[in-house]
């Protein structure tokens, strides 16, 4: 239920009522406007909105990630990075020392606390979990999502509740396309850009006269990957034989793969992620499909490559980020993460860390937690501090404009060194993307700031 401007949302009512339970409802009539000034973060300057103002000397972030379900391995790595970000925000370290906006003693002088929730890789569960964080824990920012279905559901809720959502791993076109939201920001690129980055590489490697077959995860993300790959591969002269949906959480792909093998395609695209992706690529190699066709996994990551083992050899795909990307921010994040957890961070972990710090920095620049001001700080923000070169957080759809790494899986014999993939190309920001009135952005209506 979006709260109409000027009316009091049920939650604000409860908060205020909790603070002064003896006051009758009539006593609230004049309260909604001044937001109980005196709370930190620019108190009386702005009216109450969402979970603003932030009372007391702590501020709560909500980390809503899958710790069960097919994307749990990604979710757990995100959680490690979120906790690292929280620690750095409060005590310094990592990028906090290099971001000019961040001080290392909390955000706007408040100590950062966090609440965690398991989305179970399921949109409804995720929404309930986020709702709890917003209502019960007064989270001022929610971050997370490994599944786009989850990210889109939570982003929609955050728009209604006027609480910021910093999307972590979500790659569907819809997140910053038809389901975009004023209150949501995405650092991760999308399926459309993956198609743009991958098609030239595939054409160079496999030629321009190929037939391809797709298996895709049957929800928002897989559907947009399937569409975008079809679009950009058709443009380089390839022909799609068929594309077949598989339910999210499928663990046995053997029958689908048999059918793919029967198709006599030259290239097999496996649009699966997380555990599903590791399973489908391993099972494809197990069934000998790689002897007759080239396998492509449009989006993957380090843990998936590790789980797939030797099966990932020669498989092309795009990745969010990898610790092999050699520059100052990348290296300092990898180092801090390894010191804390004795393991190499994955791409989703870097996204989680980056999104948390970007939010905190935007709050510092805005000098308030008041969401509309924080949003305006992020819109059109240009930065080059997270290890992916020069970037822009575009105002029209809240989609980061950035370079995209294209990776290829290493053979098992070379994996012992702890590297499972090599980066074959860093597709420049100029070579991917679309204007504000085309591609997925054409369908984006961001919605209200909440202070109109």
């Amino acid at each position, binding site marked *: 239920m979006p709260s109409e401007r000027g009316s009091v949302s049920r939650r604000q009512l409860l908060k205020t009522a909790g603070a002064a339970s003896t006051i009758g409802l009539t006593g609230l009539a004049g309260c909604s406007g001044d937001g109980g000034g005196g709370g930190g973060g620019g108190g009386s300057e702005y009216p109450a909105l969402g979970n603003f103002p932030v009372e007391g000397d702590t501020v709560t972030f909500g980390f809503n990630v899958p710790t069960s379900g*097919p994307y749990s391995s990604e979710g*757990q790595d995100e959680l490690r990075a979120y906790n690292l970000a929280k620690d750095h925000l409060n005590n310094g370290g990592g990028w906090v020392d290099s971001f000019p906006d961040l001080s290392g003693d909390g955000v706007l002088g408040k100590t950062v606390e966090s609440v965690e929730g398991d989305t179970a890789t399921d949109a409804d569960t995720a929404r309930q979990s986020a709702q709890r964080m917003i209502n019960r824990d007064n989270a001022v920012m929610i971050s997370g999502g490994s599944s786009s279905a989850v990210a889109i559901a939570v982003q929609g809720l955050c728009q209604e509740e006027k609480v910021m959502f910093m999307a972590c791993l979500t790659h569907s076109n819809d997140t910053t396309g038809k389901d975009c939201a004023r209150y949501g920001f995405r650092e991760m690129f999308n399926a459309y850009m993956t198609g743009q980055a991958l098609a030239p590489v595939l054409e160079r490697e496999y030629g321009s006269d190929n037939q391809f077959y797709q298996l895709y995860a049957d929800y928002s993300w897989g559907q947009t990957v399937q569409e975008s790959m079809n679009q950009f591969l058709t443009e380089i002269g390839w022909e799609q034989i068929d594309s077949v949906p598989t339910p999210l959480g499928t*663990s046995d792909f053997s029958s689908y793969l048999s059918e793919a093998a029967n198709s006599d395609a030259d290239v097999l695209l496996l649009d699966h992620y997380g*555990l599903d992706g590791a399973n489908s690529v391993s099972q494809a190699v*197990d*069934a*000998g499909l790689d002897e007759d066709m080239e396998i492509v996994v449009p989006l993957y990551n380090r843990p998936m490559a590790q789980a797939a083992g030797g099966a990932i050899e020669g498989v092309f795909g795009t990745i969010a980020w990898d610790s092999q990307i050699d520059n100052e921010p990348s290296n300092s994040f990898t180092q801090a993460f390894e010191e804390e957890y004795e393991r190499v961070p994955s791409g989703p972990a870097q996204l989680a860390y980056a999104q948390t710090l970007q939010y905190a920095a935007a709050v510092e620049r805005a000098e308030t937690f008041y969401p509309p001001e924080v949003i305006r700080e992020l819109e059109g923000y240009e930065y080059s501090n997270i290890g992916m070169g020069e970037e822009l957080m575009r105002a029209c759809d809240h989609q980061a404009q950035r370079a995209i790494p294209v990776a290829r899986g290493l053979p098992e014999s070379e994996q012992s060194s702890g590297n499972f993939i090599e980066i074959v190309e860093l597709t420049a920001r100029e070579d991917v993307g679309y204007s504000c009135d085309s591609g997925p952005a054409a369908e984006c209506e961001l919605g209200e700031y909440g202070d109109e």
Partner: protein
Amino acid sequence: MSLLSQVLTILLNGLQQGAIYVLLAVGLSIILGTLKFVNFAHGALYLLGAYLGLFITTEIQLTNGMLPEWGITTFGIGLGFLAALVVVPIVTFFVGLAMERFVAQPFYDRPDTDQILVTFGLAVIFQEALRALIGGDSQSLPQPGWASGPIALPIIGNFPRWRLGVIVITAVLVLFVYALVEYTDFGLIVRAGTMDSEMVRLLGIRLDRPYLVVFGIGAALAGVAGVVGGPLANVNPNIGTEQLVPAFLTVVIGGVGKIEGAVLAGLLLGTLQVVLIQTGFAAWNRVGIYVLAALILLVRPQGLLGSEVSVE
């Protein structure tokens, strides 16, 4: 692709898909047929088998659950797959003996609703305890090295080696149990007990020991199914419950107490699922097995190979 090879591929896929159902259903079926005991903890034995297999086969890093909080971060002893294939059925056999003695025996004379409640309760407790200890993560049980990769078959072409192995292992085990029940004195007593336990007792034959062994065998088969089926999908705390219902369907369709019925029904269900997936009705593959079960039971309430006499 010729039509012949397509049909053969579907059949082979159906065989491997149905193999796990068969392994579970044979044990369930003989326990239900002989002991008249409804064991809803059968899926938990499968789950136990899969995790024991994981424990014996590999070393995994734990990141979730209570064990890591207590400082135990690795799980498993890395002995390899063959060891698991031998050890797990022995362990689950003894678990089965204990279950018969302490769970089934006190409930033989009680209505089957009580049996369902107590065994299902146990299964849920086991499943959730496991989740609490090591988290709800899915793990992959690696298939044995000698059975990874494809094998080139005539007509069909490449087929995953391990899935062929699953079919062979299932066939061997089921034939072994079938021979045990059909051609040994033990089997004779068990079958006689199934028909008329009172008469067997009057003849001075004690049934409690054969019953114990039947339960053990059923449990051992479920354990093996966990090890064999582990590499085909993922291992997580939910797999026991997920397998339980298809296994029961298999028993009911095949006819309670009939080993050959369980085999036939398992293969039917597996093949149906594969056909639905490979003809573009993947979304219906779960529903499909229920529809098939309903149709068969409408025509033959006692199951495909069940005897006319209703089992009470």
